[in-house]
């Protein structure tokens, strides 16, 4: 009994350290905000309807327009550096046949137009979300974020943060195939 009194706190402390170490080192569950699971995944995408950025840029779309096809919806902004970093991969996705829509997050028409002219516009259509109200509706915490919406309008996957080649190969493409197959 007396030995238990001495050993028990040590054991409890060791167990606590173990749990903390496991949680800190487990990449899928660690406290990185970009890894927060979105409660919207698996649910129908909340209804949004966005105007075009400018007349000469194809755009303006609503959730209704997304139905019938698997689509990728990329939230971006001209002021967002990681967006620029992932832009070639978004462009490649579109070139490979994916239907990519853009939500232009908290941007001005002039800045967005300049940015798209300079870096290319791979988007099927772009909706201007000047006040970020639509982004809120979709639970966007920052830019860039990328959603995969299945043909029924359900959010199949969401990635927060820039798409890297690893993310593209490991997450986006498999989820895209999964959504197309299902």
């Amino acid at each position, binding site marked *: *009994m*007396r030995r238990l*009194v001495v050993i*028990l*706190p040590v054991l*409890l402390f060791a167990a606590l350290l173990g749990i903390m170490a496991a949680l800190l080192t487990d990449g899928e569950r660690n406290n990185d*905000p970009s890894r*927060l*699971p*979105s*409660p*919207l995944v698996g649910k129908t995408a*909340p209804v949004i309807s966005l105007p075009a950025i400018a007349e000469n840029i194809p755009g303006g779309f609503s959730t209704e327009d997304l139905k019938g096809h698997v689509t990728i919806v990329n939230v971006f902004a001209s002021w967002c550096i990681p967006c620029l970093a992932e832009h070639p991969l978004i462009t490649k996705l579109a070139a490979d046949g994916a239907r990519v829509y853009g939500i232009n997050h*908290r941007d001005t028409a002039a800045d967005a137009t300049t940015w798209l002219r300079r870096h290319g516009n791979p988007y099927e259509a772009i909706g201007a979300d000047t*006040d*970020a*109200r639509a*982004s*809120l*509706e*979709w*639970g966007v*915490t*920052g830019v860039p974020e990328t959603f995969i919406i299945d043909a029924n309008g359900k959010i199949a996957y969401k990635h927060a943060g820039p798409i890297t080649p690893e993310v593209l190969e490991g997450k986006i493409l498999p989820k895209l195939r999964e959504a197309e197959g299902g």
Partner: protein
Amino acid sequence: MKQIPAILALTILVVMAGGPPALAVEPDEVLANPVLEGRARAISTELRCVVCQNQSIDDSDADIARDLRLLVRERLVAGDNDEEVVDYIVARYGDFVLLRPPFQPNTLALWLGPPLMAVIIATLSVLFYQTYQRRRRAGTGPEPLSPSDRAELDALVERIASTNPPSPSSVPRSRFRAEIEEGLKPPPDPDDELPGADESSDNDTHAGNADTQRQT
């Protein structure tokens, strides 16, 4: 001229103290209806700014916090009750936006962990205290005489008694034993105390007695 450092110090102090804490809520966000605004403020303090992690949207200057504050007000104006407003945001951002996590299966450890720890620590404290008390109680009072001590004591008493033939005036033999056993004084070393009777103090009862007995 001498006051300049003092004035400077005071200025720095005032600037650093910063006066009342700056409010994140901008005047243009505030609703005209004070009741709704009050509810909006109350809800806002319970919602996490998802990009700042430990600030409520009521405290944060982040764009998304402002957007969420406006969303809260928009829902309130639309007629939602407080719970509906919170549910609306939780549906989009998950339980993570709640600064006060809900009590549900995946938060059991969070809610029950601390009370459980308190119970464990209280139990251990009681056990430690009891052990301590038991040891302390065992430590007070004289150690019981070991058999060898007892034998030595008996021999000593025997020797004193043999050099002190009992007489009506002398102290009864039983008192020697009682006094020694109670530890009122350490058992005298026979080689030291009995011959050196002169060194004995007046209240040194048995030695003094032995002395007088021998002198007579």
